[in-house]
């Protein structure tokens, strides 16, 4: 009688503690993949950054581990009352609008402005509340200076107000498989069609082509 419960618990732990277990769980978030041995980064690659980030599964990483597959990146914060829910909603709509084949070749990346309140636990709760798939969504937090630097690279301006809300640029960035900015969509209008077109082109020559092959 106790076995099924034990197995459920074990697989739950595997998902949460993905770094420790290389079992071929299809629900391994993009941040937990092994970095690909692809040589030096290109001059324009954001993956040159040395800053350390923590994911909602409490994994410490450099952005370079995301190399190999295009990323759709949005900077946000979990307690945002205005635009972020719409930005994330747009991303989910974008995900559903993709053909299955494309969806398995693209990751989504949410990075928080809110170094104080967006702890890994808060990000995990955000993931669950918004039903962001484990296999292709990464949620990250970082130190204040590192967030400022990343935002600077993405051309995103932000400022924190007295209530702890952030006023910030609304930008969706598409990174190619090498971590270079391939496309940016400004504003809250839905830009899915153009983004999908860009992703179709980028995935044609990505180093980590399909979702299923990567769990090896």
């Amino acid at each position: 009688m106790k076995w099924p419960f034990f197995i459920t618990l074990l697989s739950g732990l595997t998902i949460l503690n993905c770094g420790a277990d290389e079992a071929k769980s299809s629900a391994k978030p993009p941040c937990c993949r092994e970095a690909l041995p692809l040589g030096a980064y290109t001059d324009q690659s954001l993956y040159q950054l040395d800053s350390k980030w923590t994911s909602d599964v409490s994994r410490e990483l450099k952005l370079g581990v995301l190399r190999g597959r295009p990323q759709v990146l949005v900077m946000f914060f979990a307690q945002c009352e205005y635009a972020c829910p719409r930005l994330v909603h747009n991303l989910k709509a974008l995900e559903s609008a993709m053909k299955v084949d494309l969806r398995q070749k693209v990751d989504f990346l949410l990075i928080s402005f809110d170094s104080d309140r967006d702890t890994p636990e808060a990000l995990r709760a955000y993931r669950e509340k918004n039903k962001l798939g484990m296999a292709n969504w990464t949620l990250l937090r970082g130190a204040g200076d590192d967030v400022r630097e990343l935002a600077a690279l993405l051309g995103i301006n932000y400022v924190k107000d007295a209530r702890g809300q952030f006023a910030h640029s609304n930008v969706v960035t598409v990174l190619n498989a090498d971590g270079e900015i391939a496309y940016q969509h400004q504003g809250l209008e839905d830009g899915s069609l153009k983004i999908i077109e860009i992703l179709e082109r980028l995935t044609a020559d990505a180093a980590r082509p399909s979702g299923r092959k990567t769990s090896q």
Partner: protein
Amino acid sequence: MILRRCIACAITVILSLPCAHAEKSDAFKSAIEIPAGVYRPLFRGENDPREIRIPRFFIDAHPVTNADFLEFVRANPKWRRSTVKRLFADDGYLRHWMDDLTCGDGRGDQPVTFVSWFAAKAFASWKGKRLPTTAEWERVAAAGFESADGSKEPRFVAEVGRWYSTPAPRTLPEVGQSKANFFGVYDLHGLIWEWTSDFNSAIVTGDARSDTGLERQLFCGAGSLGANDRTNFPAFMRYGFRSSLKAGYTIHNLGFRCANDP
């Protein structure tokens, strides 16, 4: 005769030193202590306080010079003109230098410009310092010649206004030529623009005179920001200038200075 030849020889040696710079007194070179105080942000949200408290800190008396920056690139080859990664500086980086390690005769004491935010930040941390925040920089720059609030000194206001309405000269003057302000800090106005650590905290679009629909589209929460002091024209110019920058930009009259905590 021999003496004259020696002098000529010495002059030749001095002139041929790359980025030679005259010795300045220690007081001039050192960092200046800025006591704890307040900064009144130009734009603030409806619920934001009118004043932000800034703890005591230190700021360089003058901007970083070409000679200072040369030391840095000597010690950090990855920040040399020919090796810097394009992600961290555009192709104008150190354009005014002769090559990687020669900034040119007579340029040593000029403020270094054509440096990106990333390069400025790297220099500061190499020195064990950091860039000042916008609030810190503005607090120091708000001081006049005789008091911590320059807006009450007509001579100061007129002098600052004159610089902001004059185009930058092709050849920049050396640092420290202007009159020091109340705190003993030089060149905050009248020489160059300066990077701040959070330059990208300016939330304004190119044509933002009021809360527009465009701003609401582009910036989350922007609709709630209002201007604090509509008469402080130079502060508006700095705000607009910062908001137009990208971190990799290098510009002929944009440099920086460092700050550090007590």
